[in-house]
């Protein structure tokens, strides 16, 4: 290991007036890392069921995301077409190569031009699946992977995200165990994006403007199977 590394570690220990941590202390810290405990979770993030979905909606819309409710995954192609028409956006969609998105009935929308893959910056609109939603702040959780390239989350002007109501959790701390369950303890995909509303900047005279470098619009398709049967 490098000399600088040793020099820095020595300097830290000198300042802390100790040598390498005693074994017992090290074991205690290892245990803290091996079984991460949530800290204080705000009361608003401890809701469940309908209240949790309602909390997510309220916060997402406050962050300037727009939301369409859908009773079924089969309704996604129609909802995308309608949204693009309503917003006067080109009927061209870049899809994440995610099996759930690929299996939707796109054939019923012949006027929608569909392509699949990462973005090179030329796609006006993307559709990607969310791993989870966080009710506390209306935040989407998107993961990088072979089926979910990160460029789709940032390069297109309009980012549409598919979120199933059952994937909405209360707090950030509810997401981490799901990640550990999927990727293994202390392992992560290359990128985990927590996204709350569309891109913005207030760097010019402290005036808030939408669409700085990322998407100008963030639209959430919330598929809520229970909504249909309610």
């Amino acid at each position: 290991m490098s000399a600088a590394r040793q020099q820095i570690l020595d300097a830290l220990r000198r300042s802390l007036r100790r040598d390498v941590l005693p074994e017992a202390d090290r074991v205690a810290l290892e245990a803290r890392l091996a079984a991460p405990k949530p800290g204080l979770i705000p009361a608003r993030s401890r809701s469940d069921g309908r209240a949790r979905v309602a909390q997510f909606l309220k916060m997402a819309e406050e962050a300037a995301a727009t939301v369409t409710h859908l009773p079924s995954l089969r309704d996604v192609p129609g909802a995308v077409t309608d949204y693009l028409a309503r917003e006067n956006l080109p009927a061209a969609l870049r899809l994440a190569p995610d099996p759930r998105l690929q299996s939707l009935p796109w054939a019923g929308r012949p006027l929608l031009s569909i392509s699949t893959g990462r973005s090179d910056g030329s796609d006006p609109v993307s559709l990607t699946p969310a791993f989870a939603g966080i009710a506390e702040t209306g935040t989407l959780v998107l993961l990088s992977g072979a089926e979910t390239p990160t460029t789709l989350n940032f390069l297109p002007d309009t980012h549409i995200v598919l979120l199933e109501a059952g994937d909405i959790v209360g707090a950030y701390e509810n997401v981490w165990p799901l990640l550990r369950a999927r990727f293994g303890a202390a392992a992560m995909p290359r990128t985990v994006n927590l996204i709350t509303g569309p891109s913005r900047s207030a760097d010019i005279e402290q005036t808030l403007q939408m669409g700085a470098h990322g998407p100008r619009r963030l639209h959430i398709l919330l598929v809520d199977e229970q909504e249909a049967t309610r």
Partner: protein
Amino acid sequence: MQTATSHRFKENARTALDDPALQKALGNFQENFIDRRARAAARLPEFDALRDAARDIKDHVLENLDFYLERFEAKVVEAGGQVHWCTDADAARSAVLEICRAAGARTVTKGKSMIGEEIALNEHLAAHGIEPVETDLGEYIIQLRHEPPSHLIAPAIHVNKDQIADAFRAAHADLDPARPLGEAPALLAEARARLRSRFLAADVGITGANFLIAETGSTVIVTNEGNGDLTQTLPRVHIVLASLEKVVPTLEDASTILRVLARSATGQEFSVYTTFSTGPRRPNDLDGPEQFHVILLDNGRSRMLGTEFQDMLRCIRCGACLNHCPVYQAVGGHAYGWVYPGPMGAVLTPSLLGVGEAGHLPNASTFCGRCESVCPMRIPLPKMMRHWREREFERHLAPAAARHGLRLWAFLARRPALYRFAAAIAAGLLGAFGRRRGRFRSLPLAGGWTAHRDLPAPEGRTFQQLWAKRRRVS
């Protein structure tokens, strides 16, 4: 390191006070920062308890910093990345340059990073033929203007729209002179279009880090524009610049601190983009960098540990102490003469540059205590500024007049009878002379005060006399 003019704080402040454009730009703190933060804090009943929890997490980390850094490094390596330990700015600059050269880089995009400013990275890269492009809108503006940031999270807060338009016209050679750039949306559109091609063409992307996660070896950035994500996703190489104290144990610990960060910084419930990066792209990934490097910078921080300035290492660079500081609001960030302005800069800069260069900054405080009262990490900023003042005094760095004045005051303060006697004479004299107008336009030995405002005249009695009288009456 970035060149400093902190020793000239007084002259810098005077220039700032006489700059009408700057004074206008500094006029909106109440509405845009102070009120927003207050509303966001009031909306979360657990906010103050979260501040306590955030403080405790960082205190725990600092006591075990060696352990958590070693763990962080091991996890970065496990994920396929590299950690470069750098004792000082010079080493960090060299490490970045070496990575860029090995990648054959010609242009480098950069997300916002205070460490990048601290080590003066842009100058170093440019001097070696690599073009650095700042991508945060505010950072881009000040890069074009060849000046340092004046605020931790709003780097171009001192610049107005006309100045931005001028900078764009000067730098964007093919920009149609007839195209109007008078309004903010036109300026944003111009910057967005320009930077889009730079994002796509860059060979290396450099970001800062709000947190390093020991549990997973992840680095975390928090932005609103999305520039940091484009910076770190598109190029072949991602370099993260971070100082040692950014590490936290787990994702859960980061979550707690994230809850107080955005609310304190911009009054948002949560920033738009909070991104966790772990290693380079995976074998089947369709995008993302092929290399992942973390520059871990000490640059004086290990020396702060275990001293009366250790608490400063809890700082998460939210800028709340700047926004609430009457001195910062009056003079802006450039007057502080280095990378870190406001109360946090007044404590950190002397720690990193030495009391000789920056010993004057802790004097630029009224000790009103607002910085500490809003600090999400509960850093006792005024107390630490007092420590620096003591050191400045001990090392005979304060001006002779201040030292003699303090000595005289200390002599009197230790002799209560004499103090009461002298104070009664002074109050009586000032009261008698000032009775007619109620204030003084000028006064011997008080020119620094009366040059800018009148000194109110005392009523003729000292506080102690009035207090004694009150007690006799009751």
